[in-house]
């Protein structure tokens, strides 16, 4: 390699000196702008002066408790000018080459590699290999230590899931209440009205949150066995999306569909085109795989809404232990 050899020669010839060559301003090895060092220096001076002014302005602005935009703007601009001047100094007021350095070969020669391998393997084998009992015990103790260390590191973090994904706080006869704990009566919603409700005592619960919609003033039937679940036009569906668990927060009134704003799953609760029944929040669009579970409602003697029982299936997104239903 021609350049390399010359480089070596240059290195040997000039070991002592280490300063960069001074180039005349018309040298092509300078940045074009550096051909006018006076001008370049003025730019750097201007940058540093601007930075100084900005930093002083920041100090003053902080002192008088100025707005955040002023504080951040002054120090941000100051840092920028400071850096710009710094960089311009390095770029335009220093001889820029192009310079070069030699690469050294990364890998070692074969003898060195062999020596390393020999030291690692043979010396190790000689010292360790003979003591097979010790080696096995070492591995056993280390392995068991690794396993038991996982107990506090992982198992202590939280409780086992047990059945908690299969149940909510809705119980037989739970009062349907608003976030403020106020019981919901049959007169509370107009047709087309919608309300987020909870079982009494679990207001704000992430898993028990339920969307109450009034679709009519006659009972809503969504399928066989659910003839009594929708009294006086009220239906209640779990508000936890069966896709990724976001609250199904939007009711599209005119088409009678529920929309999850996270990933746009759409659940149909409108009347079926034939017959007298309604859709049971089946997903008609988007990534959700299952209908929103329906909460069976009833109206008590005082006209308050109550749950007949907990949801008949796990609410929310799918998980491994969920049985096929």
């Amino acid at each position: 390699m021609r350049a390399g050899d010359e480089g070596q020669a240059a290195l040997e010839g000039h070991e002592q000196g280490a300063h960069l060559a001074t180039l005349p301003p018309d040298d092509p090895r300078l940045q074009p702008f550096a051909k006018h060092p006076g001008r370049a220096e003025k730019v750097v001076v201007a940058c540093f002066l601007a930075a100084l002014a900005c930093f002083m302005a920041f100090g003053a602005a902080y002192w008088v408790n100025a707005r955040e935009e002023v504080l951040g703007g002054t120090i941000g601009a100051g840092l920028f000018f400071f850096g710009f001047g710094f960089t311009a100094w390095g770029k335009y007021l220093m001889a820029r080459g192009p310079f070069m350095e030699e690469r050294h070969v990364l890998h070692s020669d074969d003898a060195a590699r062999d020596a390393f391998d020999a030291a690692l393997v043979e010396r190790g084998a000689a010292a360790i290999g003979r003591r097979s009992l010790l080696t096995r015990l070492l591995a056993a103790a280390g392995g068991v230590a690794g396993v038991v260390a996982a107990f506090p590191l992982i198992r202590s973090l939280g409780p086992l899931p047990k059945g908690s994904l299969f149940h909510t706080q809705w119980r037989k006869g739970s009062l349907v209440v608003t976030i403020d704990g106020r019981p919901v009566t049959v007169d509370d919603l107009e047709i087309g009205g919608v309300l987020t409700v909870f079982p009494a005592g679990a207001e704000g619960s992430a898993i028990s949150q339920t969307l109450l919609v009034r679709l009519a003033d006659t009972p809503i039937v969504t399928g066989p066995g659910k003839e009594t679940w929708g009294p006086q036009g009220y239906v209640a569906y779990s508000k936890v999306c069966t896709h990724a668990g976001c609250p199904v927060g939007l009711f599209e009134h005119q088409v009678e569909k529920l929309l999850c704003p996270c990933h746009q799953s759409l659940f149909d609760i409108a009347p079926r085109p034939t017959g007298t029944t309604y859709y049971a929040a089946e997903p008609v669009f988007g990534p959700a795989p299952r209908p929103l579970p329906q909460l069976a409602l009833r109206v008590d003697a005082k006209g308050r809404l109550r749950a007949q029982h907990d949801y008949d299936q796990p609410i929310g997104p799918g998980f491994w232990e969920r049985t096929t239903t």
Partner: protein
Amino acid sequence: MVSRATGWLDDRVGLSKGGRTMLDKIFPDHWSFMLGEIALYSFVVLLVTGVFLTLYFDPSTKEVIYHGAYLPLRGQKVSAAYASTVDLSFSVRFGLVMRQAHHWAADVFVGAIAVHMARIFFTGAFRKPRELNWAIGVTLLTLAIVNGFIGYSLPDDLISGTGLRIAFSILLSIPLVGTYLAFFLFGGNFPGNGVIIPRLFIVHVLILPAIIAALIGAHLFLLVRQKHTQFPGPGRTERNVVGSPLWPNFFFKTNGFLLMTFGVLVGMGALFQINPIWQFGQYAPYKVSYAVQPDWYMGWLDGALRIFPSWEFTALGHTVPLEVTIPAIILPGLTFALFYAWPFLEARFTGDYAVHHLLDRPRDRPLRTGVGAGVFAFYGVLFAASSTDVLANYFSVSLNVVLWSFRILIFVVPVIVGLVAHQICIDLAHRQAGGKRKRAYIVERSPEGEYSTHVSAPRPGDGVEELEPELVPTHVAADPAGGGAGGHAAASDRRRRGGSEEPQRPTED
């Protein structure tokens, strides 16, 4: 004075020999080498602003009554995490700038890593001997994305809580162990028993930053050990590096760049609002807002979750929610596995196991460039898909149309982009003098009325790149212009000349 200090150090740690080599280290001048510096300096900004934030942030979901400076929130019950974030934004002087600069720096950090990685990829800088550094870089990208997500999950506002709810569901979707993982991490069924934010906080401010800092150290160590790659050019070979020396040229340029990065990010923090949590409100599990979108680097995952079909798989009494598992677990897993494996896949495919220090021009490797462009397009489409609702609104079309468009585009666009990129590379490679700076053709009319065409003269700067590099330049002592031993840096000479533009010979002291 200086030599006394360096001598003192050299007596004790042997600084001078290695230090001299370090000062002479050459950094290539090409602009694309700056992209990694943006990432590095964004990380510095993240550390500085982040430490400031920890002094005020209270990582607790304990309920408090807000009494701070933000009037609309006064008297409301909020979590301590949320209240302290609002407080450090409004009651701590310079706090809002620090918080917003921190958030912007995180977005820029991930972006700079991605662009830096694209430069490495398209120029083949990952080839032997740099596969390890590529792997470290991919790990850094992963950790940056994860820590970014954790970071904006901390303030307990509506966006962060919704993100955590989705994260919980994603953990649930992992077959066999998912339920346990989710319960252990959150300390129970969502939203857990109030442990998730303190836990994520310690991961965000201690564990991941420490790992990232260590990996950056390893990244830079390997960079120094293996030296930089460089583009081919006059005098540039596989056995040298051409550019500017660390001291003083690169030192000045890069420290200036650190300050500029800092300035821009602080300026953004001051002038551009980001993550105004007081507008989103305190997180409550039953609340959600319209157009929920994560930070940009999570967009591809969100988009994948939106457009993947509802393929829940049930068998033998078990459920695998593939509509979550595939886009949120398998897709990122495959993505990063592909990134890690690429240097080895390419070497195997091309049979090229040689050491490379000279970079490829992307056009000279049509296949790699085509594949890379296609992969980029794939994630670009996923990113765009995270705005299905916004796009449907903006273009006044139904969500259905937008969703199905994306389900088709995700297959079509990457193929087309890949093929087009491949073809462009082939066409460019066959062009004469491809890639040189274009020179204008000048058409002239002579007094006789004849027209003639000629190429304009080269512009200043066109010739600079063509120069032969000086040989081991930082060792050059005998300056032909007359510097001599014990001379001065060019800058000081010029300054003494008082800005004169006349070429002058520096004088001896």
